[in-house]
């Protein structure tokens, strides 16, 4: 397993940080924003102001480290649903994410120039999309790489295996970024596959696979950057298995006390990916402590502004049922809209 930064925040012997301090600080801020938003979202959900929502907590190094290896201007992200900070770095507005979880279709809108597909709910369905996207970009000689997120659970679906097979055949510039967070709802990783690792499947499809410490920002970043560079140079796909742990429930409707062993949870809590980066930065330079301390208020402010923005938008309405279903709606749908929106019964 690739490892650069150990839990005490010390670089492993013979390794160097792949990022300079300003970049590490920026990545840490995003990790903290994600953690703060998790808490906010869960509290809004309890108040009935937010729908069911999946937190990132525990996986911030995995998500942020991988997204950091991409160039938002050229590269694409194809998400599952547990990658908020990656979406933000790529340019998706937090206020849209909020609207989406408020149940407002307007939240699904992706701004022009933001290279993202929508959040995916149907497990593994995004993987073939990512391959086709990467293949098409390559056919058009666009200098772009596609990174697709998915989970250990998703890696059991046929769509995953079919996507890998095709990607290997066409040499698509795609990075399959598998977040092995230990669980698919209540189903543990060991019940998904008898294989020793999930990454070793890459060999069967003719491309490289790697296992990284998913709670190590530097290892995730470095390994993803290597895969992105290979894809950019025409070297085809890579499968990265990022070994991490979801610290919270599967989503706000889940009760993990039914299946999580408290000792395991405790073990992983001690490996918190955010603490690790903070320790590293403070060991590098004691002055960083003050900048890190300021992040809390800073990210809280950003979240409040995004919430205000989301609440300030147009209220949900009946027309949203009909908007953007077709470029050119069939007559029957036009009549249904007239009945429901304009009230001609």
């Amino acid at each position: 397993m690739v490892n650069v930064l150990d839990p005490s925040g010390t670089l492993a012997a013979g390794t160097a940080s792949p990022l300079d301090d300003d970049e590490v600080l920026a990545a840490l801020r995003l990790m903290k924003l994600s953690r703060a938003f998790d808490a906010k979202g869960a509290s809004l959900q309890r108040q009935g102001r937010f729908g069911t929502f999946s937190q990132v907590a525990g996986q911030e190094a995995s998500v942020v480290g991988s997204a950091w290896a991409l160039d938002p201007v050229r590269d694409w992200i194809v998400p599952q649903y547990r990658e908020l900070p990656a979406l933000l770095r790529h340019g998706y507005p937090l206020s849209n994410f909020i609207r989406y979880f408020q149940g407002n279709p307007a939240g699904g809108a992706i701004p022009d120039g933001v290279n993202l597909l929508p959040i995916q709910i149907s497990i593994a369905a995004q993987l073939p999309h990512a391959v086709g996207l990467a293949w098409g970009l390559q056919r058009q000689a666009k200098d772009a790489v596609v990174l697709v997120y998915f989970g250990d659970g998703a890696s059991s679906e046929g769509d995953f295996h079919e996507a890998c097979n095709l990607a290997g055949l066409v040499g698509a510039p795609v990075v399959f970024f598998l977040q092995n967070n230990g669980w698919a709802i209540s189903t543990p990783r060991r019940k998904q596959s008898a294989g020793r690792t999930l990454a070793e499947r890459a060999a069967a499809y003719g491309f490289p696979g790697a296992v990284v410490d998913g709670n190590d920002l530097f290892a995730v970043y470095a390994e993803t950057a290597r895969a992105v560079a290979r894809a950019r140079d025409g070297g085809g796909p890579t499968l990265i298995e990022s070994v991490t742990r979801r610290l919270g429930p599967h989503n706000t409707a889940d009760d993990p006390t039914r299946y999580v062993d408290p000792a395991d949870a405790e073990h992983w809590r001690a490996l918190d990916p955010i603490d690790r980066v903070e320790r590293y930065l403070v060991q590098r330079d004691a002055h960083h402590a003050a900048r890190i301390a300021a992040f809390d208020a800073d990210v809280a402010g950003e979240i409040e502004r995004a919430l205000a923005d989301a609440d300030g938008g147009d209220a949900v309405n009946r027309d949203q049922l009909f908007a953007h279903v077709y470029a050119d709606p069939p007559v029957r749908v036009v009549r249904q809209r007239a009945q429901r929106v304009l009230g001609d019964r």
Partner: protein
Amino acid sequence: MPVMTMIQAIRAGLDEALETDPRVMIVGEDVGALGGVFRATDGLQAKYGEARVVDMPLAEASIVGAALGLAVSGMRPIAEIQFLGFAHQAFHQIGQQVARMRFRSQGHCAVPLVLRAAFGGGVRTPELHSDAFEAFYAHCPGLKVVMPATAYDAKGLLATAIADPDPVLFCEPLRGYRLVKDDVPDEPYRVPFGQLRIARAGREVTLVAWSAAVQLAERAADALAAGGISAEVLDLRTLNPLDVDGLAAAVARTGRCVVVQEAPLSGGFGAEVVATLVETAFYHLQAPVERVSAPDTPYPLAGVEDFYLPSVDDVVHAARRTLAAA
């Protein structure tokens, strides 16, 4: 007789099946320690062991395909698909394999398999979890499609499904899981397939529904009654087999009919009901049969689902239109 919610009745039915028949197995996602995301299998793995209540890898096609193989081998699998919207990942297995194996093997390979799936709207699920896709499956010859609306029927129809020598898709309304409560006997009983239930007797107009739409139709019947109109509510209970004779006879008594479905209009099972009535009760009809449904648009995010789903008002208006016709 104990009062149970629909989810409790289903759990009791599964428990009874595991208890009485060692061939019964439950396979699905998160059915073990978690007891299913809705707790339909709560406590069953602890009681019957990991070999009989099996947490499957996250792959619906292999859950259904392997359940077919288990059934042919002599087991009695009950496969849980977490949400009907994710049965798409297994659609080729259901429509082409499970439903036709008896026919393709000319009777040699029977598939006594029950597929349970939660479905339907109104409970603010994430995207892609709420669609009412029953019509897809009612269009698969060889597959029975069961849509209970009450807790009593859920347990009794489940028992019939498990005993059936052929595959059955058993659709459980998310909205009914905890809201619908009624008397459910502790002892085993079966509710036969293909016999509709008169949920509410009435004289002037017939409201036809299945699954969670039955409660909607009942609320509409209350509203109509308040306005002096006597509406009858039929609960189809099973789409395949469809109680063609019971449907025709009931609608012939009132001559007016509204079919209520939660799914989008075009190609929905309501169209099948209307066509059946045109064939079987045409000369008794005194007004065009009305359909109340969702629009022909995708199931939306939770914030607008109340606009999307058919409402009591929609049903009342449709019923009044049938009464206003000559």
